[in-house]
């Protein structure tokens, strides 16, 4: 690693714009889904001059989707991401619905897709909280790195770990029943779905849901307690004012499968309301920065400097007018009221909002399982053929946009994807700068201090595999390089 360090130092000396700046790199980021790294530039007085989150892989999906038949796309593009494949599967399927002229599906198809989607919301949120983030929150940001993982949680809090595993399992089983496989299945097809649920499958789910709902609600309360115990930290950690974006139902309810685009500024002022995502490019533009393979989207009307925004659970829970399931909505109201709204503004509030959504997902699944439409036999409809399709969905990590154009031979000629994590690109960069200033400024780096930066990034639950769809990957090591280029301080976790 020290050789790596010197290489990095060499690289930095060649490329750092401000001379005499020290480079700090956190590489690879861990306990996030995907690959990325953070670099910091500090001046002679250890003040952070620059902090960047780099997405370091390219995969070129938009390009090689071209020339493939549109019905292959929902199955192909979910390979962007193994954590939330269903999001891509469904966003692409929704785009294909427009292409085959089926904007409205049969009740069975619509409900099977929702079941699929909320099943994924359940498994993804459970994975993120229990498997990836809970170690930081339970043991402390700078606790012993060796136990700061799911195995450590299993040892210290066996019951909590077991529930996490079982909640994720339930979500994965819902996906398997609707897609044929837990990961990368084929359930959604243009104009509908390829199967519905058997009575036996519904019975199997029915049996497991009550405890899943209870456990989810207890998870919400766990996060609340964490806030209560470390209010000072949680209130301000990596916190900043930001615009927000999400889909909402026409009546303002949270709807993770379908809706209009709603954007708010930091004070709740309306920037977009019920906007048609079929013309997302009227509202959202992207820019490229030379130091990341991940693009930087922004709201057209505000421009790149002020137009960046935050997506995901925090934006959705605070952005919607209500959550259409009772327990989750009650928890939402408590969350918004907590400490006169500080939690709802804080970056760590993401965790709280995420658990509220997990509870909501469990409730929605419970309702759908009781709905006989999910065992219906009318699976597919087709209408007038179109040549363009846009599909947008609220993925676990936020708003996900798929856009395809298809030629008269049914082959894709154009594809554009803006994934959840990409929307959060600027927000995550602002968050780590905030943390770097507050915790690393002028300090000798410790592994624990560095983990603070990752804690901030983890709050967003970035899916870097998604984010790298354009070209593929993200690793985190840190070192301090003196003005003369010698390594003053160096930390990576072993």
């Amino acid at each position: 690693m020290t050789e790596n360090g010197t290489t990095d130092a060499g690289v930095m000396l060649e490329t750092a714009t401000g001379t005499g700046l020290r480079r700090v790199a956190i590489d690879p980021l861990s306990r996030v889904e995907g690959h990325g790294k953070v670099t910091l530039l500090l001046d002679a007085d250890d003040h952070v001059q620059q902090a960047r989150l780099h997405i370091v892989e390219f995969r070129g999906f938009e390009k090689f989707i071209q020339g493939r038949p549109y019905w292959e796309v929902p199955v192909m593009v979910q390979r962007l991401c193994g954590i939330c494949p269903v999001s891509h599967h469904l966003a692409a399927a929704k785009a294909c619905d427009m292409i085959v002229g089926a904007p409205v599906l049969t009740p069975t198809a619509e409900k099977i897709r929702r079941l699929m989607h909320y099943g994924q919301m359940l498994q993804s949120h459970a994975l993120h909280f229990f498997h990836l983030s809970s170690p930081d929150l339970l043991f402390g940001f700078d606790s012993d790195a060796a136990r700061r993982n799911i195995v450590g949680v299993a040892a210290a809090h066996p019951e909590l770990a077991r529930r996490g595993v079982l909640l994720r399992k339930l979500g994965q089983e819902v996906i398997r029943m609707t897609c044929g496989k837990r990961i990368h299945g084929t359930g959604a097809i243009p104009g509908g779905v390829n199967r519905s649920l058997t009575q036996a499958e519904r019975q199997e789910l029915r049996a497991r849901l009550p405890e899943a709902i209870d456990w989810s609600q207890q998870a919400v309360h766990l996060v609340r307690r964490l806030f209560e115990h470390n209010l000072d930290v949680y209130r301000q950690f990596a916190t900043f004012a930001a615009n927000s974006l999400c889909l909402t139902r026409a009546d303002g309810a949270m709807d993770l499968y379908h809706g209009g685009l709603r954007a708010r500024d930091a004070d709740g002022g309306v920037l977009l309301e019920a906007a048609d995502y079929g013309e997302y490019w009227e509202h959202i533009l992207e820019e490229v920065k030379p130091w990341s393979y991940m693009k930087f989207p922004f709201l057209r009307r505000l421009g790149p400097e002020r137009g960046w925004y935050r997506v995901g659970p925090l934006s959705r829970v605070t952005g919607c007018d209500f959550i259409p399931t009772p327990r989750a909505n009650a928890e939402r109201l408590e969350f918004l009221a907590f400490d006169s709204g500080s939690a709802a503004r804080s970056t760590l509030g993401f965790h709280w909002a995420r658990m509220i959504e997990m509870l909501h997902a469990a409730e929605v699944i419970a309702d759908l399982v009781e709905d006989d439409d999910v065992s219906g036999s009318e699976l597919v409809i087709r209408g007038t053929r179109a040549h363009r399709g846009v599909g947008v969905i609220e993925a676990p990590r936020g708003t996900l946009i798929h856009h395809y154009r298809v030629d008269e031979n049914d082959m894709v000629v154009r594809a554009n994807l803006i994934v959840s994590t990409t929307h959060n690109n600027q927000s995550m960069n602002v968050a780590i700068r905030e943390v770097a200033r507050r915790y690393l400024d002028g300090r000798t780096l410790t592994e624990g201090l560095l983990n603070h930066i990752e804690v901030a990034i983890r709050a967003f639950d970035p899916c870097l595999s998604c984010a790298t769809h354009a070209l593929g990957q993200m690793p985190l090591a840190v070192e301090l390089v003196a003005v003369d280029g010698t390594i003053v301080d160096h930390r990576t976790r072993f």
Partner: protein
Amino acid sequence: MSDALRPKIRLATTSLAGCFGCHMSFLDIDERLFPLVELVEFDRSPLTDIKHCGACDIGLIEGGVCNAENVHVLREFRANCKVLIALGACAITGGLPAQRNHLDLGLCLQEVYLTEPSLARGGIPNDPELPLPLDKVYPLHEIVRIDYYIPGCPPSADTIWKVLTDLLAGHTPHLSERLIRYD
């Protein structure tokens, strides 16, 4: 923590040009995770905060090789793992990302960073912090020696479990027809 008579098997995992689906499928062993961690301890893995691979008994690698950094990580694993396993379609064939292999990488980059419809300001990222992409996406076995292969996109949890338990039991992994799938 590890038994003095029978030290735990040390397992490292990573994802190169993959989607983490294989790792997710690994987690799909569900409750079996708990007995497993009695026999196995994790080294570098997306699940731990160990950033670099130390001496390991088993290395599981998901994803193909698409850029310079993948090559470094793959070599680190080969150098440190007694048994190196290619996990999933991308690691074994290059997978979906390898569908760019018949395309010109330059055109790919141009398309994605210079000509997207919703692109306000374009430009191909060129910061030295970014690993450069290779001309093609390569299967692992074209870069280093691979000991075992677990096909599937992703391989089912049962398939991964079978290979791991075979190895833990000390015999050569064998997969039945049921457990070998390529999709």
